Structures are given as structure tokens and as C-alpha cells.
């Protein structure tokens, strides 16, 4: 993946229409957007504005009705479901609002999941898992199950799972939405550190203006269209 103009994500003329009965719901309308490599971008907007849908498009979880999504020069719309799954495993790390950890697996096994799709050996996977859990400050909680961890710790495991395979982009959907202010701040500080110290490109959907202040740039979505762009 390379981008000569330093633009990593390019969304061009994207429409996304959902059909509910005879009604067409235009969630995204002729949307254009670019994200530079190494940028920390916040996406804000009211509920139903299309933030998560846009994030899903960029992460290859959904396909546009019209328009193209290009990541690192590759149009991901053209990929088959199988190719898209392989592409996601290499390039995208997801962080979810409700952490979405597998409850029957320990922290380290949850973090190891994306590595099962790589040709790494067990020993190599263990090293990567240990490093990722150390980055998020949970090296001492590796054998704990999700139910034995606090919300903030579970989200840290979620972030470790997202970064363990060293993806190109981190996509965070309301990562602090289910946490109290203190735990939320810790998670935001962690994302900021990943961005600053490791140069990770991060796109974060949030409702919280306090969270968006951590980003380099914030884009506002309303009724499927970008309304204002504010640079930090």
C-alpha cells in the first residue's frame, strides 16, 4: 500500500442507500473525503448521520451504492468478499464501542485472534500478543477473561487486538462511548500515543467533543453529507 500524495484514504462520490420496504434511505450522499497517512481524524455528527456507515465503508465491511473508496491507491470496492476479508486482516484494526471481546477467551487469546490468519508461528504470535498488551498497559492481565476486567481494561484489550497485526489504519467506533470520563480519557490518551509514537492512522467516530479534541482534525457529518471541516 503506497500513496504518493500522502493521501491514504480517498472517498469519492459515495452514496449509500438502504432499502426499507418501498422506502429508500440515503445514509450517505455524494460524499467526498480524504485522510492523510498518519493522521488522527475524528468523525462527528448526530445519530443517523452516517458516521458508522462511512467507517464501515472505509473498513471494507460495507460497499457503497455509488462511488469509490480507495485505500492506499487500491479501490476496495472491486475486491471480492474473500479478498476483502484478507485485505481487512492486513490493513484494518477495529475498535468497537462495546469492546466485542469473545467472553470465553482470555485477554491474550482475544488479542491473538487476528494473528491466527497470518503465517506466524505460535511463538511469534505470543511475542506479538505480549508486545501489544504491553503497549496498552495490560501485560499483567493476559490470563484474565473479559468478565474479570473493568470496562477500560476491556477496551484496552480491544485496542491491543486492533493493533497486534500492525494494521495500516485503526478504525474506532465510539471507543469511549461506554466508559466513564476517567477510563475514556485513558483510552483517548492511548490512541493519541499510538498516533504520535507509532504514526498510526486513526479514524474515530465519536459523539463526544472532548474526545474529538484529541484528533488532528474533525469532520462533521449531517444527513449523510459533510457539513463543516475544522482543522485543529
Amino acid at each position, binding site marked *: 500500500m503506497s500513496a504518493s500524495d500522502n493521501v491514504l484514504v480517498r472517498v469519492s462520490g459515495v452514496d449509500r442507500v438502504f432499502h426499507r420496504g418501498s422506502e429508500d434511505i440515503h445514509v450517505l450522499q455524494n460524499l467526498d473525503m480524504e485522510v492523510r497517512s498518519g493522521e488522527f481524524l475524528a468523525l462527528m455528527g448526530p445519530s443517523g448521520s452516517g458516521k458508522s456507515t462511512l467507517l464501515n465503508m472505509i*473498513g471494507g465491511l460495507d460497499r457503497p451504492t455509488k462511488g469509490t473508496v480507495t485505500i492506499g491507491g487500491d479501490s476496495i470496492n472491486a475486491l471480492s*468478499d*474473500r479478498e476483502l*476479508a484478507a485485505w481487512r486482516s492486513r490493513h484494518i484494526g477495529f475498535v468497537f464501542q462495546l469492546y*466485542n471481546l*469473545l467472553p470465553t477467551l482470555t485477554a491474550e487469546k482475544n488479542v491473538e*485472534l*487476528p494473528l491466527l490468519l497470518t503465517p506466524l508461528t505460535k511463538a511469534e504470535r505470543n511475542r506479538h500478543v505480549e508486545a501489544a498488551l504491553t503497549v496498552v498497559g495490560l501485560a499483567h492481565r493476559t490470563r484474565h477473561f473479559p468478565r474479570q476486567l473493568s470496562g477500560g481494561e476491556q477496551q484496552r484489550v480491544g485496542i491491543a487486538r486492533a493493533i497486534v497485526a500492525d494494521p495500516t489504519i485503526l478504525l474506532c*467506533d465510539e471507543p469511549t462511548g461506554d466508559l466513564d470520563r476517567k477510563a475514556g480519557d485513558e483510552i483517548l490518551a492511548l490512541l493519541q500515543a499510538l498516533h504520535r509514537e507509532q504514526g498510526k492512522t486513526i479514524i474515530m467516530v465519536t459523539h463526544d467533543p472532548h474526545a474529538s479534541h484529541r484528533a488532528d482534525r474533525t469532520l462533521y457529518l449531517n444527513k449523510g453529507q459533510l457539513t463543516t471541516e475544522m482543522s485543529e
Partner: protein
Amino acid sequence: MRKKLRALLTFLSILMAFVLYGYLCAIREAFSAGVSVAGADRIVVMHKMSLVMLLPVNYKPQIERIEGVDAVASSTWFGGMYQGEAKNFFPQIVVEPETYMKVYPEYLLSEKEKQAWLTTRTGAIVGRKTAKRFGFKVGDRVPIQATIWNKKGGGRTWEFDIVGIFDGKEKGTDTTGFLFRYDYFDEALEFGQGQVGWYVARVADPEKSEQTAKKIDALFANSPAEVKADTEKAFVQSWAKQIGDIGKIMVAILSAVFFTILLVAGNTMGQAVRERREELGVLKAIGFTNGGVLAIVLIESCLLSSLAGVLGLGLAWILIAQGDPTGGALAVFYFPSHDLALGFVFVLALGVAAGILPAIQAMRLNVADALRRM
């Protein structure tokens, strides 16, 4: 499987289904064993009207003279009661020791016991299963109450000296029989001397059995006691059919059982997939392919089915080996190895059948929908 109680109940349902499968296979085998071990080289010759009608004893040398017949043994159903109890049933047959052992080489008797039988008029040999059931030993004197054949003077109690206990050459050989000598029987009879129940002829070439049977039929055509000769297999089959087609009954019961279990296991897997939509969505989001997710659900289903099924088959094997539930009335009672092997196939098939629809559902799961917050 997150719901432990539901998983346990499904596990136990599958386990019990396979225990039942084992028992039904053993019961079917008990009823059809005679058919499977029946010799292709033996012809049963009975009265054309009915098995209860007797044949003259002088038919034997005539059958022996037919080309292709190696040996002929006569048999007569005694039908007595041991200790005056109907529940103590075991087949008692009147035979001629020498020819009978020639025609039925699958009954294994030591040379010493054979000699004892040939030299003891009141001697009887008993199959291992019946000997074990009633604790009979060589040297025992066993009284049996006649229900058909009275002794001269009206006595109904016949006494026999056990001179041997025979085993079966094969697993399916019937060892419930109680065999005693025709000369002792015929001499002491109040009526019906000089007659036997049926003959069994052994032929040299099994491929010519039917042809030889026709010759036997023709030999006694238009005589006062016409005969019906047929291969032993056909005879045993028609005998078994008189109590119904056991195989079909068993298949019907098993089909109902497995269909019910399929619904139970399928429902469990379906619920498990529905409850884990988000988790399956996460797996897809991090790069698991649709095929990978399908495989995960199928493996889980097969694992549940295999653990419960294999344990059920093992339990059935152990329980059946303890003996038949009637206390020994069934001639043979064991879990046939081919049915056990088929059981393993059913275990896997159940896993696949129960898991396939939920697995397809998981495979088609839209990631964005699965992860959409409620």
C-alpha cells in the same frame, strides 16, 4: 456454547439417542441373527402343510440318496417347560447326534463331550448361553415338563443328563439350544413314533441348493406327506417374518429418534449462532472469511455431536455387553461391529446436519448488521 444447561441437555439427548441406537441394533441382530448365520449349503425339508405336521422317519435315507446331498439330520421341536415356568423358555430340539453335528459344524463341542453324548441315551447338550442362564453344568440331571410329547403311561416329565456344553463358532451363532437324542425320545413316546419334525440336508455345492430342493420336493410329490424344501436362509427369513419385519420396525424407530435429535441439536446450534451474532461479526471484521466462519460453526456442531455420540455408543457397547434385558431369552445379544461403525458415521452426519443451516446463517451474516449497536 454459552448456555451450559442447554448444551448439557442437548449433549444428554444425543448421548441417549446413541445408547438407544445401540440397543435397537442389538435387538434387531437378536431377531435376524439366524438369517445372517444360516448356511447357504443347508436345505430345510418340512411338511408341505405346516411345520407342526410331522414327516416319516424313512424319508431320511431317501433324501440322502439324492445327488449332491452330503448329510441329512432330523429335528423335532420338543417345546417343554423348565421348572414349570413359561418365562424359562429355551428351545429344546430332538436330534440324532452324529448327523446333527455333521450338518451343524458351527456348534463346537469337545471330542470328549461328543463321545459322552453318543454313548448316553439320556444325554443332552446345552448351548453356552442357556447353560450360563440356568447354571447348568456337565453331570447335571435336568427335568423338563412336556407340553406336547407325553411319555408312555402319561408321564410329562422328561429327564436328561447334561453331557456337554457347546459354543458357537461365530459371534452370531445361537447358543440357547438344548439338544437331546432322538432314540431316547422315540422309544419313550406315548404317540407319534417313527416321525420327525423336519429334516435339514447339507449339500455339497451351495449354488445347486435350489435345484436340489426342487428334487426333494419332486421326490415326495403325491405322497401322503408332501414336503416343502427350501434353503435354510429362506426358511429362517420366512420364520422371522411371522413376527414382523424387525429390521423395518427398528429403522422406523431410529428414524424418529434421529429426526427428533436433529431438531434438538439444530435448534441448539441455531440459538448459539443467533446469540453470538456480534462475536461472529467481529471475527469477520478482523478478517475471517465467510468459509472460515461456516467451518467454525460446523466444527462446533460436529464436536458436540461427536463427544455425545461417541460416549453414547461407548456406553451402549458396555451396557449391551452386560447381557440382554430379558435375562437371556434372546438367542444372541450384542452390538454388531458394522452397526457400531455405522454409528460413528451417524455421529458425524448428525453434527453436519444439525450445524449446516446455522453455519450457512453465520456465513451469510452481514458484518455491519451484526455489529450494529442495539
